[in-house]
């Protein structure tokens, strides 16, 4: 089901994101990357990052840090060592991402690698990644615990796990407004723009199925992460969970 949904939405994914979130998703991803604090020479894995939004932001953040760090001769050689892996289960999403990379001028960048893979069974070695992000992807996996366990496995000691995901709103009046928006506006919008009402119906229902912030935080802690925290954006519409592997 998930595979079919994303094959169908791939081409209109970014447009629909912009419409549904009124462009806010860009700010959310900016916030995610700033919380990550990327550094030159970093090995990073972005899972379910098909169209590459998060990966591009990380790369751009590192190149700007690099300009500052040019003062320090030790770091100069590290820029080449930066490796960002974008992993997605769906090849269509990866193709869209590769296209975007070329448009942004990052097509030839050796730091960016596109990998087709399953978040529940990653092909990367243990203790190999400094950072792991999953933006709007963990909602769609079958077994959240497996994904978290894999994330814990591939991270190095001191590595950070960050998850950006649509989450639960508890604020009284805002909750009703949000529910109305989700069920009465988004599916017809999907019908109009992408010609696909069902996928977006699936989307808003899957948001409600996903565990709330506290529960998800405890699941992350169960996987072995420490210093598990979350930050609500827009009153809980989106939450960024973070954990540290020690």
């Amino acid at each position, binding site marked *: 089901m998930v595979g079919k949904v994303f094959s169908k939405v791939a081409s209109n994914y970014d447009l629909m994101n912009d419409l549904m979130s009124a462009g806010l998703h860009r700010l959310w991803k900016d916030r995610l990357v700033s919380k990550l604090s990327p550094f030159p020479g970093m090995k990073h894995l972005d899972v379910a990052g098909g169209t590459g939004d998060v990966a591009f932001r990380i790369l751009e953040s590192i190149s700007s840090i690099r300009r500052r760090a040019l003062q320090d001769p030790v770091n100069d050689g590290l820029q080449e060592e930066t490796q960002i892996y974008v992993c997605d289960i769906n090849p269509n999403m990866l193709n869209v991402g590769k296209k975007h990379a070329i448009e942004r001028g990052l097509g030839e960048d050796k730091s960016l690698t596109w990998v087709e893979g399953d978040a529940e069974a990653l092909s990367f070695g243990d203790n190999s990644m400094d950072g792991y992000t999953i933006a709007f992807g963990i909602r769609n996996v079958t077994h959240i615990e497996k994904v978290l366990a894999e994330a814990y496995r591939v991270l190095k000691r*001191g590595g950070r796990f960050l998850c950006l995901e649509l989450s639960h709103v508890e604020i009284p009046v805002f909750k009703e407004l949000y529910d109305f928006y989700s069920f009465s506006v988004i599916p017809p919008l999907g019908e109009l723009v992408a010609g696909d009402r069902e996928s977006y119906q699936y989307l808003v229902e899957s948001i409600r199925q996903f565990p709330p912030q506290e529960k998800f935080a*405890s699941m992350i802690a169960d996987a072995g992460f420490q*210093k598990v925290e979350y930050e609500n954006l827009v009153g809980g519409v989106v939450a960024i969970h973070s954990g540290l592997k020690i």
Partner: protein
Amino acid sequence: MYRTAANRLLYGASLINNSGGGHLLRFPILRTVISSSRFSTTVDPQTFPNQDPGPSDSSTTSSATSSSTSSTAGDGPRHERKNPRAEYEEEQARVLQASLRHVIRLGWSEEAIIAGAKEAGVSPSIVGSFPRKEAAIVEFFMDDCLQRLIDRIDSGEELQNLIPSQCISKLVRIRLEMQAPNISKWPQALSIQAHPLNVSTSFKQRAMLVDEIWHAAGDGASDVDCYVKRTILGGIYSTTEIYMLTDSSSEFRDTWLFLDDRVKDAFDLKKTVQEAKYLAEAVGAGMGSSLQGFVSRVLQR
């Protein structure tokens, strides 16, 4: 656990709303000397309140620690609670300790922490887990210096035979000498401490420092006077610190002379204030009687 509760009572929690309405619970942790030998100002997240359904806790808590503290069944080794919690804080402290060696080259910055992390054998991603990155390393340094000062006080016999003004002078000098290796980068540290987000923690650290120095100088008073004394000492310390930034004499000789002068001024001021009080009383008494006589004569008319 009691340590955290005590700190909460003393210093309070600050709930910070991030842009867009997010909330992170932050406890400025200042472990007291009595109960621990290490100072740290790292964030200490609230334990996950599965067993305790306190309404205020569950609505404001936004963090959890590892599984042994968050198991819903309430089983599992409770005695392990401290260990996994302390682990990441220890790692963070280790990283910051290693970073201090890089400050002279890289300044009080993320780069120093990244270099420190590499030295400590931990992924530099850990820099993202410090809520206020440059401030973390500065605050760690301040705590570290305070701890070293306390160690010096506890072990030093040299302070026994000094009069208070000399004692204070010596202690401030010992403390400022700890900053001497990094003095070229110290202005950056001061500006970081003055940043609105960091002011409250740096103020607390300085208050503790001043308290410690007065305590060692033999003044255990807890009356109103003590606030005045601590404020004055705080002023002496800060001005000397700033003087030291531009002092190019060998081994900061000029700074110590400046310090001695200021301490002398402060003690002289105390005497002067007392004398002024007696003078005012005398004048008041004298004036009062002649004024009374004048007023009564006026009223008689």
